[in-house]
C-alpha cells in the first residue's frame, strides 16, 4: 500500500492552446509535512492547484498528463467536489464567508449537524433542526486546534480581516476527513502579527498529521515554517530542497533566475539624473482594488525609462492608474514642479502625460471602432487636435483628411499590420492592438508616458517590437517612460532603473544589472533587503 506519502504528483504536464505551462512537475508530501511551493507570477502554481482541485478550466482545455496519487492510490479528480470528498482542503486567498452568519454557522456551512423533528419526519431531512450546540462545540474544537481564542458565536462581519482567514481554515479542518490542506498565499492580506499567528497555526495543524502545501511569495515565511521547498519557474521544477539546506538568497535567485543579456541600447546625449526630475510623487495612495498603493514616494528623472516591478497585488499597477486619475487617489504629484490635480484624467493628460493601460481590451481600445479613430480620439478630446475651426468648441467638426493622414503615418511608423486605417481594432492581433494603444498615446505627443504591462498577452516576436518601439521613442523624442511590468526580464532589458514595489510602497530601486538575488529578495519583501540606489 502506501509509501508514506499523503500526496504525490508525478510528471504533471499541462498546456493551454499549445503553450506549455507545466512541464513534468513532480512533488511529494508526507503527512505532517509543510511543503512550500514558491515561484513568480505565472510560474505555474495556480495551474497546478487547479489540477489538484479538478477545476473545470483544466478539463475544458484538454485535461493534463501525469498522475495524482493520494495515500499511494492513483485518483482522478474531475471536480472540486471530488477533491473535497478525497480530503483535500483549500484555504482561499479571498474569503468565502457569509458576513451575517456567526463563526460557527460559517464553519459548519452546508455540513450542519441536525436533529430530526416532527416536520422533518413528514417532509424529509431538509427540514431537520440544526443542532446549534454541536455546531458551536465542533467549531470550538477546530478553533482550538488553530490556537485561536475568537468567540464562535460572533458574527463574521464583526471580526477583523485577519480572523476571517482563520475561520476559513477552521472550516477546512472541521471536515473530519481532511488530510491535505492547501494554503494559497494566505498571508497576503494579513498584518505581520496575524501572519505570525497563522504560521503558528500551520505548524500546529501539521503536528496533527495533516499535510500542508503552502503557496507563497514571502520567502521569510517559507524559511520559518516549511520542511521542504519546491521552486517553480516557467512551469518547471527548478529546484527542490530541505529547509536546512536552503538559503534565502539562493531561493530568490532560483525563483527569478533568468540571466538575460542586456542588449546594448542607444546612448543618450545627456544621461538622466536626479538633478533634473520630471515627476515627483510623494505619499501617493491609490484605492485600486487588488493593487492598492499605500503612501508611495517616487521621483522620475527626465528622459529615463523607469521600470516598475513587483509581484501581483502589491500595487505596482495602481501607480499609473492613480496618477492618471482613473482610480481614487490622494497624495501629491508634481510634474516639472507644477502640482497636478489627482482624480482628474483630463488635467493629467493635458499636463503632458499619456497612459497605456494594462487592460488593453477593456480600457485601451474601442474594439468596434476603426484603427484611425482609436489613434486620434484621445488627442481630439483632450487637446482639440484633428478638429476643424468652429465657433463652439464642443461642436467643432472632425478633420477627416488630417485624421487619415495621421493614421497612415502612424501605421507606417509603428508598423501596425492592418488592412487599412478603417479596419476595426477587434480584428487585429494582440501585438498590433498593443501598437494601436501605443499609437494612441504617442498621438498625444506626451513628455511622460506611462505604460502598463505592454507585452502582456502578445506573442514573443511582437513583444520585442513593442519594447523596441518604447526605446526608440525614448531616444528619438526624448520621451520619459515609466513602464510597469510583471516580467522582470523585460524591465531589465530596456530600463535605466527599476523600482520594486512591495506592499504599496517602493521597496527599493535597483539597477537593471543588479544580481537576480537582489530582485528576488526585494520582491519577496525580505526585511533586510539591500536598498541600493543607483
Amino acid at each position: 500500500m502506501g509509501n508514506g506519502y499523503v500526496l504525490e504528483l508525478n510528471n504533471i504536464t499541462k498546456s493551454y492552446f499549445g503553450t506549455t505551462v507545466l512541464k513534468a512537475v513532480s512533488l511529494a508530501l508526507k503527512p505532517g509535512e509543510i511543503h512550500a511551493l514558491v515561484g513568480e507570477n505565472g510560474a505555474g502554481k495556480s495551474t497546478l492547484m487547479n489540477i489538484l482541485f479538478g477545476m473545470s478550466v483544466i478539463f475544458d482545455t484538454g485535461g493534463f498528463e501525469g498522475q495524482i496519487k493520494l495515500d499511494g492510490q492513483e485518483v482522478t479528480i474531475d471536480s472540486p467536489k471530488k477533491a473535497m470528498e478525497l480530503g483535500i482542503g483549500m484555504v482561499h486567498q479571498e474569503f468565502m464567508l457569509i458576513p451575517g452568519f456567526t463563526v460557527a454557522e460559517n464553519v459548519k456551512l452546508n455540513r450542519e449537524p441536525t436533529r430530526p423533528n416532527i416536520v422533518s419526519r413528514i417532509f424529509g431531512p431538509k427540514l431537520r433542526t440544526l443542532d446549534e450546540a454541536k455546531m458551536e462545540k465542533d467549531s470550538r474544537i477546530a478553533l482550538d486546534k488553530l490556537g485561536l481564542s475568537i468567540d464562535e458565536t460572533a458574527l463574521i462581519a464583526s471580526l477583523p480581516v485577519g480572523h476571517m482567514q482563520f475561520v476559513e481554515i477552521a472550516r477546512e479542518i472541521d471536515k473530519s476527513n481532511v488530510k491535505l490542506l492547501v494554503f494559497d498565499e494566505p498571508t497576503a492580506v494579513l498584518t505581520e502579527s496575524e501572519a505570525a499567528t497563522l504560521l503558528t497555526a500551520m505548524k500546529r495543524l501539521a503536528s496533527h498529521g495533516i499535510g500542508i502545501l503552502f503557496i507563497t511569495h514571502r520567502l521569510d515565511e517559507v524559511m520559518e515554517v516549511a520542511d521542504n521547498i519546491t521552486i517553480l519557474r516557467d512551469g518547471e521544477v527548478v529546484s527542490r530542497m530541505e529547509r536546512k539546506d536552503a538559503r534565502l538568497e539562493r531561493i530568490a535567485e532560483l525563483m527569478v533566475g533568468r540571466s538575460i543579456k542586456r542588449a546594448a541600447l542607444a546612448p543618450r546625449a545627456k544621461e538622466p539624473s536626479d538633478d533634473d526630475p520630471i515627476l515627483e510623487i510623494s505619499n501617493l495612495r491609490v484605492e485600486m482594488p487588488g493593487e492598492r498603493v499605500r503612501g508611495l514616494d517616487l521621483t522620475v528623472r527626465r528622459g529615463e525609462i523607469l521600470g516598475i516591478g513587483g509581484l501581483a497585488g502589491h500595487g505596482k499597477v495602481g501607480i499609473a492608474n492613480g496618477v492618471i486619475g482613473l482610480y481614487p487617489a490622494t497624495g501629491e504629484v508634481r510634474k516639472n514642479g507644477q502640482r497636478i490635480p489627482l482624480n482628474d484624467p483630463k488635467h493629467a493628460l493635458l499636463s503632458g502625460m499619456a497612459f497605456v493601460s494594462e487592460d488593453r481590451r477593456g480600457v485601451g481600445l474601442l474594439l468596434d471602432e476603426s484603427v484611425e479613430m482609436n489613434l486620434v480620439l484621445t488627442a481630439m478630446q483632450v487637446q482639440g487636435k484633428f478638429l476643424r475651426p468652429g465657433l463652439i468648441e464642443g461642436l467643432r467638426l472632425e478633420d477627416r483628411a488630417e485624421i487619415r493622414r495621421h493614421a497612415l503615418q502612424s501605421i507606417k511608423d509603428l508598423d501596425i499590420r492592418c488592412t487599412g486605417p478603417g479596419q476595426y481594432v477587434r480584428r487585429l492581433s494582440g501585438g498590433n492592438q498593443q501598437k494601436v494603444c501605443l499609437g494612441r498615446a504617442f498621438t498625444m505627443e506626451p513628455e511622460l508616458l506611462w505604460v502598463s504591462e505592454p507585452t502582456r498577452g502578445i506573442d514573443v516576436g511582437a513583444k520585442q517590437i513593442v519594447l523596441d518601439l518604447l526605446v526608440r521613442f525614448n531616444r528619438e523624442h526624448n520621451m520619459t517612460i515609466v513602464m510597469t511590468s510583471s516580467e522582470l526580464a523585460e524591465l531589465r532589458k530596456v530600463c535605466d532603473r527599476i523600482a520594486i514595489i512591495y506592499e504599496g510602497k517602493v521597496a527599493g530601486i535597483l539597477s537593471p544589472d543588479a544580481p537576480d538575488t537582489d530582485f528576488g529578495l526585494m520582491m519577496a519583501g525580505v526585511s533586510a533587503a539591500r536598498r541600493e540606489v543607483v
Partner: protein
Amino acid sequence: MAEKSESRVLSMAKQFYADFGLPRLIIAAFLLALFVLAVILRMNIGMLVSDSLVRIGMNGILVLSMLFTLACGVGLNFGLAVGVIAGLIGAVTSMNMDIPGFGGFLTALAIAVPIAVVFGWLYAELLERVRGQEMMVGTYVGYSIVAGMCMFWVLAPYRNPAMIFPLGGMGLRNTITLDRTFAHVLNDFLAFKIGDLAVPTGLLLFFALFCVGAWLFFRSRAGHAMRTVGANPAFAESSGVNVKATRRLGVIISTVLGAIGIVVYAQSYGFIQLYTAPLNVAFPAVASILIGGASLQKASVGNVVLGAVLFHTLLTIALPVTQTALQGADISEIARMIMSNGMILYALTRVERR
C-alpha cells in the same frame, strides 16, 4: 473564370446580407409583396405612397431621439414619454394662446424645448443612479410620468374653450383639434402633387434638417465623445471625457427631440392627444430604429432613416392593402403589435454583455 465571378457575386451577396441583416431583408421583402399585391388589386399607389411619406415625416424625429441615448450608452429611450409630455405641454400652452399657423407651431416648440431640457436633466440624474438598468427603469419612468400628468391635464388652468371639456369648464379634453391653430403647417409648406401622389415637402424637409444636424453632431468633438462613452466608458474616462456629463447630454437631447417630435406629430395628425396617449409613442420609435439596423452597440443616422421608412411604410400600407385583399379583416393592428414588440424582443436578446 465563370466560377470566380460566381463566387465573387456570392461573396458580395453574403456581404450585403451581413450588412443589411435578416430582419430588414424580411421586412423589405414583405413590403415589396404588399406593393405588388396593391398593384394587382388596382389600388391607388399614389395615395399609399403619400400616406407613407406623411407617416415617415411625422414619426421621424421621434425615431431620431432614440439615436442619442443609444449612442451615449444609456440604451433605448423607453422613457421617451418624458420628452413627449414636455412637447404636449408646449402644444397645449401654445393652443391656449390661440396663435394661428406657423406662429403657433413655433410657440409650441419654444415652450416645449426648455421644459424638455429640465425634464431631461432630471431624467438623466435618475438614470445615472440606476446604471445598467436604464431601459427598464426608463420604461417605468414613462408609465409614471404619464399617470402623473393625467392629473395635470385635468387641473391645469387652461381656459381656451376649444380645449377643455364642455361641461364643468375645467380639464383638457382627450383629443384636441388643431384646426384653428397649427394643424398641417409643416405638411402644407411647399407641398406639391404629382397625380395622386402628394408630397408633404415641409414635413420631410424638417425631418431631413434634424437628420443632417444629428449627422453633423456625430462628426463633432462632442459627438465623438458621446459615441466613445457609449462604446467603452473606461476608454472615454481615460481619454479625459466626462462620462456622466456626456450621458446626461445624450438623455437631454433625446428628451428634447421627443418633445419636438410629438409637436411635429401633432401638427401632422391635426390633433393633440393627451392622458394615456403618450404611452404609445416610445415602442414604435424603439421598433423603428431597431428595424433600421441599430443595435445597443452601434446606431447611426442611416439606421434612423431606414427604420422610419421601413416600419412606417409597412404600417401605413398594410392596413388598406390587407383590408382590400381580405375583404374587411383588419390585421394591421395585430401586425403592428407583432412587429414592433417582436423587433424589440429580437434586439434585446442580442445585447452583448461586456
